[in-house]
């Protein structure tokens, strides 16, 4: 038996040539067994299994998936339509994991979505996918056709009498569509402006109906949890949370890429063993552990276990688990500028700190980077980092945008000051 730590349930089936696992191969490798299992269970029992597996959301928030399902009022209390949505709007800079899952093994996501629907007794499921993801979308459509023809999807799932319709819905483009309530607005044909929480989408979501929204990677875990049980799933992890995690490394390392590894794999191992360390001639300076909305980790943090609690203890967040590496030949101010420009551009325009604050931050960084920095600029940046935080803004976009800046101001202060002092970018 392979040691649990080396199992790759999410990606193990994938083909080396990058072509998708189609229905026959998927079934042959144990596909849709989780769904079959779920069809024999009550919604409560499906939820119970997921709950015991300690699956935490892979979309960046890390909320316990079983708990979230349990928060949806049962149909007896809230009769009528209910929905599940796969959040495949992946646009967090540095994140590329959901694309991999959808391109490589589309049936896995469909099966996960079906199980989620059964768990919360929803009859309609949406796959909300980034509009730019043409290839993943095509493969999902193809897989969906296969799944429908084989009776997994539709009016009578595997003859069980349960109905689950699945629709692929391409996004028209905006980072905020990935924020779960912004996503709901987009699905309803509105501007993707986030909604106030509470009430949470599980209570009042799509069209005002109870709606479960989960990340692609999160959903891809469900078939395996159902098929092989919570205990097995928990055992995959090195830490307190269950399962494996897709980790990615981008930036100027030897072998940028993605790997499925046990939750809690040490950062050093990912960076040096899997990504091969820094590219020739470059030294490691820092990295963002889980996309652009997480704070920097330094050398000193490299032994941190990549699980939710440990990364948080190190002062950052696991986020999406896809890290972006900063080397010693790259200007940290320029890197921040790229990110803050992104966040400013992607603000939905609803709340003041984000709509007005982020462009100010971006303008200030641009001035510093261009050699137009002034004395008060660092204070302006520091004020934004201090004041833009959760509950001060309407959603997590702007606080997320401040995360890397917070670390940068702390760890690379000298670089910022040098830009201002010398009126130029020392890297140029």
């Amino acid at each position, binding site marked *: 038996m392979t040691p649990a730590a080396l199992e790759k349930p999410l990606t193990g089936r994938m083909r080396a040539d990058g072509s998708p696992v189609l229905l026959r191969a998927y079934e042959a490798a144990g596909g849709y067994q989780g769904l079959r299992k779920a069809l024999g269970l009550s919604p409560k029992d499906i939820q119970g299994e997921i709950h015991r597996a300690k699956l935490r959301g892979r979309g960046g928030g890390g909320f316990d998936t079983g708990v979230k399902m349990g928060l949806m009022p049962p149909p007896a209390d809230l009769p009528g*339509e209910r929905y599940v949505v796969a959040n495949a709007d*992946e*646009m*967090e*800079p*540095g*994140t*590329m994991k*959901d*694309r991999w899952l959808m391109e490589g093994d589309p049936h896995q996501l469909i099966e996960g979505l079906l199980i989620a629907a059964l768990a919360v007794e929803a009859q309609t499921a949406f796959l909300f996918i*980034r*509009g*730019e*993801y*043409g*290839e993943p979308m095509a493969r999902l459509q193809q897989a969906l056709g296969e799944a429908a023809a084989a009776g997994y999807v539709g009016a009578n799932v595997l003859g069980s009498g349960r109905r689950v*319709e699945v*629709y692929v*819905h*391409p*996004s*028209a*483009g*905006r*980072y905020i569509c990935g924020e779960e309530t912004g996503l709901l607005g*987009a*699905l*309803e*044909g*509105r*501007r*993707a402006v986030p909604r106030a929480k509470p009430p949470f989408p599980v209570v009042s979501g799509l*069209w005002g109906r109870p709606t479960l929204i989960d990340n692609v990677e999160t959903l891809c875990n469900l078939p395996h949890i159902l098929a092989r049980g919570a205990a097995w799933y928990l055992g995959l992890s090195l830490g307190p949370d269950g399962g494996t995690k897709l980790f*990615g*490394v*981008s*930036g*100027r390392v030897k072998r*940028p*890429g*993605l790997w499925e590894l046990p939750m809690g794999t040490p950062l050093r191992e990912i960076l040096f063993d899997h990504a091969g360390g820094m590219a020739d001639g470059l030294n490691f300076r820092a990295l963002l552990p889980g996309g*652009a909305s997480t704070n920097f980790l330094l050398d000193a943090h490299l032994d941190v276990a990549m699980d939710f609690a440990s990364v948080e203890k190190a002062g950052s967040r696991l986020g999406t688990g*896809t890290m*972006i*590496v*900063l*080397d010693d030949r*790259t200007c940290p101010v*320029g*890197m921040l500028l*790229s*990110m803050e*420009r*992104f966040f400013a*551009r*992607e603000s939905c325009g609803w709340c003041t700190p984000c709509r007005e604050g982020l462009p100010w931050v971006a303008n200030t960084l641009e001035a510093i980077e261009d050699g137009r920095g002034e004395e008060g600029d660092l204070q302006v940046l520091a004020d934004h980092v201090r004041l833009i935080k959760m509950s001060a803004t309407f959603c997590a976009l702007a606080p997320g945008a401040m995360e890397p800046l917070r670390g940068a101001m702390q760890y690379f202060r000298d670089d910022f000051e040098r830009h201002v002092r010398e009126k130029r970018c020392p890297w140029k």
Partner: protein
Amino acid sequence: MLTDHDKQEIQAELARTPSRRGALIEALRVVQRRAGWVSNADVVEVAAFLGLPVSQAEDVATFYSMIFRQEVGRHVILLCDSVSCWVNRADALLTHLRSRLGIRLGQTTADGRFTLLPAACLGACDRGPVMKVDEDLHTHLTAEKIDRILESYP
């Protein structure tokens, strides 16, 4: 003018949403798929077809980045400008593309061949810098590679 085919596609979308509004964004995309972009007149027509106020359609049509409100060239280049690609020196490629095409971001070449737009992270950060031309993803870009790629889009 909405074509019959557009209308059929929008009707199909309507069938799966409980409110006519739910088909709005898809309807705009239907037009864009055919015409390449969405004009003011298209917005008015889509709104009328769905029985929605024009302002509702306009509000949505101006929010989303993939709904083009100006005419675009035969090929749309989406160059990723997010952080992973930036670390991989994508800004130099932007400079290259701009001088090669003689346009700035947001513009279309005089011969109507290319429109150059910035794109948020395209989810291929391990293969950066990347760009999309129409529906094709191009990775590990260099200036020379870009030149070659452009040749294949007449």
